[in-house]
Structure formats: structure tokens, C-alpha cells
């Protein structure tokens, strides 16, 4: 270990600038963690999903649905079988979302992908098991089977649940959803605008 570190140490007369440069990189990295609310993604708080405003339609429609009382985003959209698959799914989904959002690739109407659909279907059944008891619907299916006509997803019939059927990026103008906390901490704001 020591060997590796000493192998990349810069020449003596470079050390000062290198220390500053690496601190700048680390600082920038911390700043990005802060302005992107990075730690909120570890939680189950639905507000984490509207860190990016493209999800406002989904948030607003969920917030006004009956599911809002019992389930938040992650309860349906993230696997709940074990923590490892939960965070693995979050990481892969989250990386794609941040890539799409950063490069402005989001479509006007966001639609669920295969992996997401399968997870949601399992989560419907996780809570509504008793309602499905002993009906043919209780058989677990995935997107491939559903497209082959073997079975149906819950929302093939329950089309309004819970996001409604009107859901483009512009479907909820002036939706009243929680606003992002400012990245500048309160004490610093108070310092710069004394009351």
C-alpha cells in the first residue's frame, strides 16, 4: 500500500499545487453531492424523486391518489425483496435517469421500461395478495409473458391507478408539490440578506 502511494507522489517541488488541486477536486465533488441532493437517494422519501422536475407529473398524480396514504414511490417502483436487490435496482435505474436528465434526453411522455414494469407488478401483488387469493391473477407474470398474452398486469385494467391517464411532462402546470430546499444553507442566506 505504502509502495503504491509513494509511487504516485509528485516531485517535491510540485507537492503544494497538487495538494490544492486535489482539494479543489474533492470540494467540487462535495458540492455536487450537495446541489444534487445525492444522499436523499438513499432514503425512501418520495421527495427524492422530484429532485428532478421531470417527475413532477408523477409526484402530483400520486400525491392526489388513494395510494398516497399507504405507499410512496419506492414501495412500488423498487424491489422490496431484499436490501441488496433494492439498492442495486436503485443504482442502475438512478444512473440511467441522471444520464437522461443531464443530457436532456427525457421524452415528453415518460413510460415505464421492462425492468420497472416487472418490479411494479410484483409490488402490486406484495400488498394486494389477499385480494388476488385463489384467482388466476395470483400467478406471477412478467412483461414478456404479458406481451405473449399469458396474463395481464394489474394496471392493464386499473388504468387510472394511481397516476391517472393524463401524464405528459406538461400535464400538471403549477402542480403544488414540495419545492427543492435551496442549496445555500440558511445561515449563509441570512448572512448575505440580513433581515
Amino acid at each position, binding site marked *: 500500500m505504502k509502495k503504491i502511494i509513494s509511487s504516485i507522489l509528485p516531485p517535491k517541488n*510540485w507537492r503544494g499545487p497538487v495538494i490544492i488541486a486535489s482539494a479543489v*477536486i474533492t470540494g467540487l465533488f462535495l458540492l455536487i453531492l450537495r446541489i444534487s441532493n445525492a444522499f436523499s437517494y438513499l432514503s425512501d422519501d418520495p421527495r427524492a424523486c422530484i429532485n*428532478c422536475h421531470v417527475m413532477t407529473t408523477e409526484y402530483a398524480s400520486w400525491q392526489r391518489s388513494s395510494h398516497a396514504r399507504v405507499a410512496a414511490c419506492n414501495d412500488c417502483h423498487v424491489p422490496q425483496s431484499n436490501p441488496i436487490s433494492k439498492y442495486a435496482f436503485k443504482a442502475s435505474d438512478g444512473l440511467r435517469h441522471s444520464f437522461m436528465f443531464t443530457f436532456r434526453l427525457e421524452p415528453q411522455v415518460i413510460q415505464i421500461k421492462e425492468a420497472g414494469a416487472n418490479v411494479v407488478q410484483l409490488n402490486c401483488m406484495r400488498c394486494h395478495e389477499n385480494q388476488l387469493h385463489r384467482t388466476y391473477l395470483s400467478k406471477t407474470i412478467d412483461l414478456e409473458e404479458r406481451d405473449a398474452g399469458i396474463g395481464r398486469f394489474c394496471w392493464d385494467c386499473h388504468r387510472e391507478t394511481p397516476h391517472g391517464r393524463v401524464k405528459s411532462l406538461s*400535464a400538471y402546470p403549477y402542480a403544488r408539490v414540495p419545492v*427543492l430546499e435551496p442549496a445555500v444553507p440558511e445561515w449563509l442566506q441570512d448572512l448575505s440578506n440580513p433581515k
Partner: protein
Amino acid sequence: MRRLQDIISEKPWVGWVLFLSTLVIVFLIGVFGASIVERRAETRFLFNASKPIKEFEPRNEVWGDAFPREWETYLHTIDTTFATKYGGNASIDMLERYPNLVILWAGYAFAKGYNQGRGHLHAIEDVRNSLRTGQPQPATCWTCKSPDVPRVMNKIGPAEFYKKTWADLGPEIKNPIGCADCHDPKTLNLTITRPALIEALERQGKNVKKISHQEMRSLVCAQCHVEYYFKGKEAKYLTFPWDDGITAEKIEAYYDSVEHVDFVHYLSKTPILKAQHPDWEIAQFGIHSERGVTCVDCHMPYKSEGGVKFTNHQIVSPVMYISSACQVCHRQDEQVLLKNIYDRQDKVRQLTGTAEEILVKAHIEAKTAWDNGAAEDEMKEVMTLIRHAQWRWDFVAASHGASFHAPIECARILATSIQKSEEARGLLAAILTKHGVKLPIKMPDLSTKAEAQSYLGFDIVKFTKEKAQFRKEKIPEWDKQAEEREKNYK
């Protein structure tokens, strides 16, 4: 492994490559950060009004420019063609429909004229035209009528506002109930603009700042659709009588304790309490409210138009759009749901009618007792019973939609009203017998509004003429002053 130091001292260009690549990395991280900040900032523009609205902007059409969909639906409150069995947005002459009311309010302006309210857009016009206004009355009567009210209150303070006369503020109050009554112009969040509600909630120890959005969807309505009174002979300070609770009995006890009297009954000499419109209070006891359904959920249901979903601002009886108001939760046919509504209303109306008939008898019997020499002492208990019976009947009768909002609570209150009237009549029978009056007392013909008003000796033609005169003299002047003022708005 060779040390980096050694490599660089041999080939200095490696150092420069490291320097430049670090530079590029820092630059890219910076650009990434800037992009996050930019996308955060977009939220502000995407979900806000297209142009800023000034604080206390009373003109609804200025808000309307920024919110065309809400504005368009709001304009529909001008409609007066939709009548349900008991309400809707058509103007119904309630005295014509229920002539007993003329007798119950004898001695009060309500006996002159009482029409079922029309949509919010008519608020100013209707209050100017009512036979109950135009006489000396405090400016407090304007409080619920216009977004000009918070504007004027901001200038002169609520206490000063209430102290003025209604005619003083005539030119100030121009715009009918609208946007600024419920919305914060900056955030568009729901907000309470009327001090009376904030004060009532604070007296109950509630933190007004911590009210949830869902609760606000009822409380913005509770700024006006509630029971209230004007506290103080001079101050006329608008006050909600909720300090002991919001049931009919609790409010009655509150009014008794402050010895509030709205008018002394012309026939029975009873110090009467006139219920205003305890819509919000009674609704709190209904099953919808208990399940967390708010006023807005049914009276302003969501609507979608061209892929955009928004709240319908045509505030009206939900019977108008059962599909979007009721069927969002209830799966039954419209016909079945309508029957469910009318069944409840019919049954409560039956009880309300019974309570009215008995109260009318009690008032007329009390008048006969006075006419035949009954003493103040003998009549004291009778008057208390009539006061309470009439208050409880009025609490239900004056509350818009109460018979649907909370039919069981209505039936409970009416049952106590009927019981109290009958108890009063029992005492009256003894008093009348004692004074040698033969029972039963003959009741006058009260089959129409005109009959009932002529029984009281009303000259309704005179009132109507006075009103026409008032309209001709005052209204054009008020409108002119208001127009002058609004020219100076930016």
C-alpha cells in the same frame, strides 16, 4: 514499481499531461455542477405563473391572464341555469318557497327578502341588490364579498375596516369573490386572507402556519362559509363563535354566555339568534369530512383538457358534475348517486319543515299570550326555549348543503329543535289557559310569501322602491370611483 517523481524528472512532459488532464477533469466537474444548478432553476419557471402578480392584486382578470384554464372555469360561476332540487346556482326566492320563514324572521331584514345565493361572480351585484342592504349597516358586511377586502384591510387594518359603514366602503369594493381571496400571489399556495378565521383558529391554540394543504382545501372556504357574528356594538368586529366548540349546542352556549342577540322577534318578543351559514361546521360531522374529503374535492373536482389536468374553478353544487365529483370514488350510476343525495336531502327537509311549522305556531301563540296580558316572568322560560329551538332549526336551514354534508347531524339538531318548540308550546298552553284564552289558537294563512308578509303588515312595495332609489343614486357613483382607482393600478 518506479516512482512518479522519477518518471517526471526523466520525462517532464508526463507532468504536463497530468496537469492538463486534471484541468479537464475539474472543468467537466464544474460544467456538470452548473448543469445541475440550471436544471434546478428550471423548476421555478416551469411551475410558476407566466407573469408575476402583485401582492393584494384584487382584479381577477389580471390573475386570469396568467392562469387561462382556471380563469375560464371560474367565469362559468356566472351561470344561473342549474337548479337542483334544493339549491344549485339559480337564484331561488326562499321566502316564496317556504313562506313560514317570513314569520320566523319577523323583525329582521331576512323577512323582506332571502334568495338562494348565486355563483361567486355575482357576489357584489347580489349584495348590492339585496333588500337587506342599503340601510345603515357596518362595512363588516363586505368582508366576504371581494378580494378588494384584503387590499383595504392591508391599508387600514381589520378593526378600522369593521368600524366603517357599509356605504363608506362601497366605492372600494368592486371585484367579486375571486383569485386573491384564496391564493398567495407569489406561490399560488392556498392561503387564509381573512383575519376572523386566523383569529378563531389561534384562540383554539392551532398553529395556522402548520396547516396541511389538504386541510387548507376546506379552510379557504371556511373563511366565509361559517357561522359568525359582529362583536361589539361599535367595533362590529367579525368573530367566529367557535371558542367552546363547533356544534350547534356549543355555539348556542357561547352566544348565551356573551348574551348575543341578532334581533327581537316581532311577534313573540324572543331575543333571537340568526344563524348565518355554518356550512363548514356542519360538514365536519359528515362522513365525507371524517374520511378526509375536503370541500374542493367535490365542489372543484379535477378536470382534464387537452392533456392538462387542473382544478375546475366553477364552484357549484357537485350535482352538476356527478361523474367527476362523486364517481371518482363511488362506482354507482349517476342516477343511483343522485337518488342517494336527494333521499338524504328529502328526509332532512321533512324534519326542517316540521320544525318550521311548530316554531311558527310557538311564535304566534306567544304573541297571543302577550296580547292577553302574560307577564315577563311567565314568558321567560318560553322565550329561552323558542330562542334555542329557532337557533337550532336555523343552524341546519341556513347551512348550504348541510342535509347532504351531514344528514345525521342535521336530524339530531332538528330533533332537539322540535322538542324545544313543543316544550315551549306546552308551557304556552298553560299560560294561555291561565289568561282565559281558548285553545287552539287560530293560525293565519301563510300559504304564500305575500300572505305571510301582509300578516306582518309589511309594505314590500315600499322596500322595493327604496332599493331602486338607492341603486340609482349610489351604485353609479361607486362604480365611477372604483374605475378611477383601478386606472392607477399597474
